[in-house]
C-alpha cells in the first residue's frame, strides 16, 4: 500500500508561554535536577554517616577494653610513679646538697694540732675558729685561710693576750665555692 506523503511549509504557530507554563517546565527540568542532585548528596552522606557511626562504635568498644586494662594496671602505675618520684628526689638530694668533708680536711690542714681549746663552728656558710695559740701560729692560720680557695673574706676578728706565750683568737671566714655532693662523689 502506497503511503501518502505530504509537507507543510507554514511556520508552526506556538502559543506564547505564560508564567504557569514556564513554572511547569521549570518544575519538570531544573527543579527535578536539583532534587535528584540533593537526593544523591543525601544518599552519599547517609553512607558516610553509617561508616562514621561504625567507627564511633568501634572506638567506644576499644576504649572500654583499654580502660578495663588500665584499671587493672592502676596500682602498678601508682607504684611506678612513686618509684620515679623517689628516684628524682633522691637524685636531687645528692645534686643540691653541699659536701663539707673537703672543708673539714682543708681546715685540718691549715690549723696545726698545737692550737689549744680549739673550737670551730660552721653555720650558714660561715666558719668561726676560736682557740689559743702563739702569735706566729695565729698569723699562719690567718694566711692559710686567706690563701685557700675554699674560703673568702677571712678576718682576724679578735686577738687577746693571755699574759703568757699564747693568745686567744677568733678568726671568721666565709665558705667559698662549696662543692655539691654530686660534684665530688660522681
Amino acid at each position, binding site marked *: 500500500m502506497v503511503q501518502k506523503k505530504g509537507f507543510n511549509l507554514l511556520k508552526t504557530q506556538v502559543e506564547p*508561554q505564560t*508564567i504557569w507554563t*514556564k*513554572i511547569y517546565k*521549570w518544575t519538570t527540568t*531544573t*527543579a527535578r535536577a*536539583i*532534587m535528584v542532585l*540533593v537526593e544523591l*548528596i*543525601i544518599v552519599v*552522606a*547517609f553512607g*558516610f*554517616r553509617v561508616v*562514621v*557511626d561504625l*567507627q*564511633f562504635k568501634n*572506638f*567506644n568498644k*576499644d*576504649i572500654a577494653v*583499654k580502660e578495663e586494662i*588500665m584499671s587493672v*594496671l592502676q596500682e*602498678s*602505675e*601508682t607504684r*611506678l610513679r*612513686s*618509684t620515679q*618520684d*623517689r*628516684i*628524682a*628526689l*633522691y637524685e*636531687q*638530694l*645528692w645534686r*643540691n646538697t*653541699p*659536701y*663539707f*668533708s673537703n672543708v*673539714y680536711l682543708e681546715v*685540718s690542714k691549715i690549723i696545726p*694540732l698545737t692550737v689549744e*681549746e*680549739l*673550737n*670551730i*663552728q*660552721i653555720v*650558714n656558710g660561715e666558719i668561726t675558729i*676560736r682557740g689559743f695559740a702563739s702569735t706566729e701560729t695565729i698569723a699562719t692560720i690567718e694566711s692559710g685561710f686567706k690563701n685557700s680557695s675554699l674560703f673568702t673574706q677571712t678576718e682576724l676578728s679578735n686577738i687577746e693576750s693571755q699574759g703568757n706565750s699564747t693568745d686567744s683568737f677568733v678568726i671568721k671566714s666565709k665558705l667559698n665555692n662549696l662543692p655539691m*655532693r654530686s660534684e665530688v*662523689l660522681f
Partner: protein
Amino acid sequence: MQLKTSTSQLREYLETKQGKTYFIAIMTLITVAVMLVFAIVPAIKSITDKIAQNEVRREYLNALTDKEKNIKELLIQEEQSQAQIQFLESSLPSKRNDEYILANIGEIAEQNNAYLFNADFSEDSVATIESDVESKKRLKQVPLTISVQGTIPSLGAFMKKMEEFPMPFVVESMIYGNKDVRSQNLPANRGDSLLVMKINYYYYEDVTE
C-alpha cells in the same frame, strides 16, 4: 489602590520575557537555598560532628594505648631493676626509722675509730629542697644532732664516710674542736676532739604501701 497598581504592574512585568526569566532564576535560587539549609547542610554537619567526636576518641584511645605500652615497659624495667629498687628503698626509706639511722651512724663512727655518744632526733617536717617533683611534699626530713668523739683525723674520716653514705645525710651546721672534751669530762682515751653536727636524714612517705 496603590497595592492593586503594584500587583498589576508585577503581573505585566512577569508576562514579559525578561520578567519570566528572572522569576525562574529566583525560584531556582530559592529552591537551592532551601535544599542547602534543610537537607545538605544538616547532613554534612551531622557527619563532621561525628568525625570530630571520633577524632577525640581516637586521641584518647591512642593516649590509653601509649600509656599501657609505657606502663608495661616500665613494669619490665622494674622487674629487671629489683636490686636498684631495693637499694633505693634502703637509701631513701618509706618510713621513719631512727633505730636504723642510729645503727648506721654508730657503725660508721666505729669503723673510723670514733665514738658516737649522743644522738638527738627531732620532729620531722616536709623537706625544704627545691624540686619540681609532683609528690615532693611526701619527702620528709628528720633533724638530728649527733655528738661524736675522736681525734681530728678520725672525725674527718667519719664525716667523709657519712657524706658518702648512700643514705643522704645533709649537714646543716657543725661545731668541732678539742675544747669540749675536757669541759664535758669525756673519757680522753676515745680521742681529744668532739664533733657536734646538726644533720637531716630523709624518708619518702610512701602511700602505696
